[in-house]
């Protein structure tokens, strides 16, 4: 005589009862919309207006980062793009890496790279010196007085 096996539930799935994935999903959409504005604003001011791409040199960048608005603009762009991109790659790793070990290694590398870039970028934006002493004056922005 055979008995019908009891209904099984999958024991392997670990449940996560947080809103983390939902917040991530909403963030991707919100940051995506914001990044469109930020990136196109960046591209237009850098490549089209004021002499276009040929005007970009140390002086141009230094002049931009001397203004708080561009500091905030670039900082926002850096953080949003990095978190957006990192979260995107994280989901790709989740979707494509099959073994837990592969996932762990790839995600560790990803998070490490993201942290390094965000910290380094933030540091550059805030500690940038537009008028390094001893530099030739023709390469510096106009407001530098030697």
């Amino acid at each position, binding site marked *: 005589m055979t008995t019908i096996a009891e209904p*099984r539930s999958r024991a392997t799935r670990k449940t996560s009862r947080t*809103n983390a*994935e*939902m917040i991530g999903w909403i963030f991707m959409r919100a940051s995506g919309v914001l990044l469109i504005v930020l990136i196109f604003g960046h591209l237009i001011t850098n490549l089209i207006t004021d002499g276009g791409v040929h005007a970009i040199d140390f002086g141009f960048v230094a002049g931009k980062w001397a203004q708080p608005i561009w500091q905030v603009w670039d900082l926002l762009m850096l953080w949003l793009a990095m978190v957006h991109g990192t979260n995107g790659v994280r989901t790709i790793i*989740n979707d494509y890496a099959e073994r837990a070990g592969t996932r762990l290694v790839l995600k560790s590398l990803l998070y490490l790279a993201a942290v390094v870039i965000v910290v380094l970028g933030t540091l550059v934006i805030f500690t940038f010196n537009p008028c390094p002493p001893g530099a030739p004056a023709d390469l510096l922005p106009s407001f530098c007085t030697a």
Partner: protein
Amino acid sequence: MTATQEAPQQLGEVPSFEVHLKIRRYLPPETDGAAPYGAPAPQAEAYWQDFTVRVHGTDRVLDALHKVKWEQDGTLTFRRSCAHGVCGSDAMRINGRNRLACKTLLKDLDPSKPITIEPIKGLQVIKDLVVDMEPFFASYREVMPFLVTAGNAPTRERLQSPEQRARYDDTTKCILCACCTSSCPVFWNDGQYFGPAAIVNAHRFIFDSRDSAAAQRLEILNDKEGVWRCRTTFNCTDACPRGIEVTKAIAEVKRAMITRAY
């Protein structure tokens, strides 16, 4: 006097033609004694086998499979029950797309080329075209696919307006054939994702005005393997033999979660 009586009593002959089937075969190796159900089976090599059958223009893929099984190779194994697109037993990958063999006409598949028939992906093959559906049904059970009510039962029917019924009408059509879930690339990866079918069946009760466990179901699907793993590739909508707008249903569940949280 009807038109049929006036017309000549000559029925158009149904055209018949040969089709070439390329079927994915898998024979599990012999084991000593029966392995418990669900235990990992020892693996053998799967291979393609070609069959040529003569079929009518009105025949479906299932008829061709029957012809093979009944006339050429009785060992060919596949599931089918009602054979009319209602029971959801004969989901298989036909020419690379998940379809019901009983709803796919051979004449629509370009019979000049071989027709490939494989088991649905992402679930373990038991034999030939038969897969282990247990993980699929486990996800289905997890979303509580039954009416949950609060308070005393009414003395008569639980009334619902046509508008309230229409809200979830699309997702009532699901026959649990697994075409959608086994067409989902996210499900193919590690099989942890709840899958479109489970979400569709949760949707059917979440938006039912008589049900009172929507919050619980949304909580279950808010899991990291729940609706947020959906990448909206629309494979599920394309695969559904019942024409359910699966991706839309998943999006509606997502929206319900966001409006619940904020």
